[in-house]
């Protein structure tokens, strides 16, 4: 059994994993003996089913790419006039004055900080937890326990983000207050734990937001990690066991080296999700006019929450264009992060011999 899986893996040409969908499927070997092609240059026989499948697959692929390109183009076309009218440096300014189309000054640096900081806090918290859960579920838990447990983790993905927002703001923030104050007092000499632009005890800061985001991206990372860890070839695990490896040593010598890049890919998918999260952060993060202090106790707006909060202003094309420009940056970042994730993941699938 394992033998055939292995040889298939071996024979797959490296670097072509991504193309499988659009490549013409191989002609199945016909049952009846085939007469050898008599005329040279005769066309290869392609079954109708294969042809239909090929065009459907190619068509859907092109369709998806076209939609993404259309969205990008739309964002770009709408953003350019606003960027021309902008009086501030779009990438480096922290202002957001967009109400009067004649006199606009806006930049994304503060949005970028809040977005990236809360997402990174989420990632740093979620990665070890997700990795631990996935290892537990695939390597340690008995089957009867693994199934329901995995199901519960997946359920986390089914909770609407607005509920996460309310939970974060009303339940988690008060609980975290003393923790935040304590962190700020003892580790305040490290810039990232220094005083933010709102009091550390306010609770509606990047710290709380990051923890909520961590819970939200946990099922994505766990799901991917579970899959890659479960794919560890049985012959490898048995090889380690036969050398006298304990369960944990099996994980260290085989499961982890095999799954590592897939796990990182899953984390990148989670990061993409965290960067784009809107509603929960709109509810949790309090609004402030003071710029960030580059601490996790900062409050403010992310790209997405800024856009959501600004919808009341959407009354002329230039103002809307300013928000769209911010959206474009978010689009490009999440797109890049997802592309990196896919790239790392596919690398983990083909890199092993």
């Amino acid at each position, binding site marked *: 059994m*394992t*033998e055939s899986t*292995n040889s298939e893996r071996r024979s797959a040409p490296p670097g072509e994993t991504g193309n499988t969908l659009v490549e013409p499927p191989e002609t199945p070997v016909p049952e009846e003996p085939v007469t050898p092609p008599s005329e040279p240059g005769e066309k290869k026989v392609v079954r109708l089913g294969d042809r239909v499948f090929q065009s459907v697959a190619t068509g859907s692929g092109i369709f998806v790419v076209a939609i993404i390109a259309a969205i990008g183009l739309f964002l770009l076309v709408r953003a350019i006039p606003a960027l021309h009218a902008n009086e501030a440096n779009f990438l480096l300014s922290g202002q957001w004055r967009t109400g009067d189309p004649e006199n606009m000054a806006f930049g994304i640096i503060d949005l970028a900080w809040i977005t990236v900081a809360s997402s990174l806090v989420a990632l740093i918290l979620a990665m070890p937890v997700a990795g631990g859960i996935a290892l537990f579920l695939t390597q340690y838990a*008995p*089957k009867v326990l693994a199934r329901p447990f995995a199901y519960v983790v997946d359920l986390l993905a089914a909770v609407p983000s607005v509920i996460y927002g309310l939970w974060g703001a009303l339940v988690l923030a008060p609980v975290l207050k003393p923790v935040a104050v304590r962190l700020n007092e003892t580790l305040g000499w490290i810039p990232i734990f220094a005083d933010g632009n709102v009091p550390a005890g306010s609770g509606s800061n990047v710290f709380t937001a990051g923890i909520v985001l961590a819970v939200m991206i946990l099922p994505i990372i766990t799901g991917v990690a579970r899959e890659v860890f479960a794919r560890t*070839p049985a*012959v*490898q695990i*048995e*090889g*380690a*066991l*036969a*050398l*006298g*490896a*304990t369960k944990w*040593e099996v994980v260290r*010598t*085989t499961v982890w*080296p*095999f799954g590592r890049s897939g796990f990182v890919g899953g984390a990148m998918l989670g990061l993409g999700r965290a960067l784009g999260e809107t509603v929960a952060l709109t509810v949790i993060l309090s609004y402030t006019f003071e710029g960030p202090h580059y601490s996790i106790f900062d409050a403010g707006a992310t790209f997405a929450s800024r856009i959501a909060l600004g919808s009341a202003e959407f009354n002329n094309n230039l103002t809307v264009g300013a928000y769209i420009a911010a959206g474009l940056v978010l689009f490009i970042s999440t797109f890049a992060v997802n592309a990196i994730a896919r790239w790392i993941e596919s690398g983990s699938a083909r890199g*092993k*011999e």
Partner: protein
Amino acid sequence: MAKRLDIKDLNLYYNKFHAVRDVTLQVHARSVTAFIGPSGCGKSTVLRALNRMHEVVPGSRVEGSVLLDGENVYAPGVDPVQVRRTIGMVFQRANPFPTMSIRDNVVAGLKLAGVKDKKRLEEVTERSLRGANLWEEVKDRLNKPGGGLSGGQQQRLCIARAIAVQPDVLLMDEPCSALDPISTLAIEDLIAELKKDYTIVIVTHNMQQAARVSDQTAFFNLPAVGEPGQLVEIGETGKIFSNPSQKATEDYISGRFG
């Protein structure tokens, strides 16, 4: 090192399925014992019971005893991890750790046992690779990944990895079945050398191979479909192949060997 095995009344199960019934046999120290028989008769299952690898299959069960120089490896309180460190195993499909270097592959077992001394690891690497007839081929690329070797070399690397810890017994489950004839010969030569120092049990579906490498041969069979596999007879290899005492053995051997 090189200990004897006494297998007594071994019954092996996968959940409800009774895979092997009532196996009793002796494996002598510093000799090669071959297990032959039709596919599915339980050769691998018995082999994997000897170093307690059978129990890693969920739902599996073992009855009976396996004595390693008189010590039951299934006695209560015996740690299976410890058993596997003293009874090494080589699998049908070569399975070096693909991301580890050749050197790290060889000493993986020692490192698991907690050996850190650089010089010792260096010595063991060379000794084991020489022991597996692989040293000359890989001595210049010990830091390259083990996955980059040919199939036959990978299997010899796995043998080097298994003998690096100087096990009391070496188990091999069809170690040549995925290899070309030249690599197969290399491994058979190696087995002949290794038996000077090790007790070897080898499962093979190739009867010429059993005849070439083993001192005694055990023939397993399935009495009927759905019934547990059984040991039909065990004896000196020359006798099993020339003058078996059981009709089933003779049928099997003449069917494919004669």
